[in-house]
């Protein structure tokens, strides 16, 4: 390794560290504001002489955190298992069983891959109104499952298409039918793809904002992101409480991310590569 490379690497390291610092600064700035005494005007980044950790308790009550967590959890529970299951089945059908005319169904799904949610949100509003589901969590759950299908099926199909067909033939010799074949042979093999998909759908659901604010008025029936939007609307002028509340609302995501960080990063990287 010659000298040029070494100095380049050093420059690269410095850039990388700078990037890390810039990424963290907004969070630190929020933390420093959140710890100021209520009613004061905080400045950008200054460690308070007397940090007011109690602000977080105030924000917990003001944001109604308990209800928000429950609501987001319910929505995730409604979207992710069903979404992953039917996408895996469809991926199996299109990628492994190779149903006749499957490429038509797949093409139809691909249409939705780059679809901005804004393009369908207005009719969805009227559709949900006619179904009597406005202001219920179903108004977020049902459309999200549909909206995730293009990516989710694409993702699972990409897995199943690479599974050797001999595997199924061997299982069929043993006398298993397609249903058993799916659960006993293919689902266990698909576990990594399913795990990544689960993580991505969880994240996208938890962070969904547009559908939440359009279809549900009551902040305690929304996703975390939707609730955060309402919290900002309500406490936007009280910067100290706003920062404390925002950090609090972020905490569950951050904890889940830090625990599963390896899987998350893998899923996000693969997700954008295939998406």
């Amino acid at each position: 390794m010659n000298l040029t490379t070494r100095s380049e690497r050093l420059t690269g390291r410095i850039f990388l560290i700078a990037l890390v610092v810039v990424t963290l600064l907004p969070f630190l700035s929020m933390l420093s504001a959140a710890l100021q005494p209520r009613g004061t005007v905080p400045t950008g980044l200054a460690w308070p002489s007397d940090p007011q950790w109690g602000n977080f308790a105030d924000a917990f009550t003001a944001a109604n955190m308990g209800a928000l967590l429950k609501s987001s959890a319910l929505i995730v529970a409604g979207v992710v298992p069903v979404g992953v299951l039917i996408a895996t089945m469809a991926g199996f059908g299109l990628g492994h069983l190779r149903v006749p005319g499957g490429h038509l169904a797949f093409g139809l799904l691909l249409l939705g891959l780059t679809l901005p949610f804004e393009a369908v949100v207005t009719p969805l509003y009227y559709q949900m109104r006619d179904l009597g589901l406005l202001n219920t969590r179903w108004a977020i759950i049902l459309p999200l499952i549909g909206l995730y299908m293009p990516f989710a099926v694409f993702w699972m199909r990409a897995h199943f298409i690479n599974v050797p067909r001999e595997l199924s033939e061997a299982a069929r010799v043993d006398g298993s039918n397609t249903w058993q074949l799916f659960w006993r042979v293919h689902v266990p093999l698909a576990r990594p793809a399913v795990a990544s998909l689960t993580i991505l759908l969880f994240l996208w659901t938890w962070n969904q904002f547009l559908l939440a604010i359009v279809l549900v008025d009551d902040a305690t029936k929304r996703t975390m992101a939707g609730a955060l939007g309402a919290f900002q609307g309500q406490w936007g002028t009280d910067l100290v409480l706003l920062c404390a509340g925002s950090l609090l609302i972020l905490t569950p995501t951050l904890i889940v991310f830090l625990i599963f960080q390896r899987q998350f990063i893998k899923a996000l990287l693969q997700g954008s590569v295939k998406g």
Partner: protein
Amino acid sequence: MTSALGSAPAGSGTASRPGRGDTRAPVRPHRKKRWGRTVRWSGWLWVLPALIMYGVFVLRPLVLTMQYSLYDWNGIGAARWAGLDNYLTVFTDRDLLKIISNAFILIIFFSFIPVLLGLLVASLVRRITTGPAGTMVRTVLFLPQVIPLVAAGIAWSWVLSTNGLVNQALRAVGLDGVTRAWLGDFDTALPAVGVIGTWVMLGLCTILLITGMSKIDPSLYEAARIDGAGPVREFFAVTLPSLRQEIGICLTVTIIAALASFDIVYISTSGGPGIQTTVPGLEIYRLAFSQRQVGLASALAVVLMALVLVCVLPIQRLTRGEK
């Protein structure tokens, strides 16, 4: 292969969750040709639940959006046929054109800057160690991807505000004259919103590009150095062509995020001051739900959808062509 396959989950009441009970007994007497056909067709039952959800909650609304776009409708009363008038408005109204151009300006910040900076860092670093330091760097750089965009909007509204971190830093180096409410200033609001997008996208692009970098065969670089190539020529001769696919991915993801942006703008500026930072997504929301111009909102939605395709498809073709 025996013939024990006549049994995809058929005939269950709700197509979405076929239970075990509905697997029919294998139909033994049927020989290859026959079962082959039934099995392949019954395979559609596996695809059906996903297609139904997609059809009801995506395709149906999509067709309705196109239908609405041809009408003059306030969302309550009777709709009046308007032909292509709404599209004419989208392409001639000065405000709407500005709103669309705002989205394109955001592409500079959401896409070009992160990709260029990411390329710079990636070509200097080449690879991140797999040790704890590398893990730490990756984790931090992915934080903006994990938190809701709403949170990024709130955090940056504070950082860019009058008393925020940016102005504090400027004052510290004696640039008091430059300080302002960045998101409220007529001239700086849109770039300020763009900077939030840069912050969100930069980490993802950098990591994607570094990952791509680490797959390049080091001997290519050795060969380039032996040929006397400097870092710049090396970049254009080796790095750039090898990272074609990764660059394509970064551009696709970030351009869609820029054109269809909503969350960040809604939270940080609500489109103001004036319409300086209004983007199509926000305008669709406002037209449909506050101004009650559902037809116009839908026409804008169709145009937005088309713009995304027009921008993304050529990138896909260019960068995936070889593979």
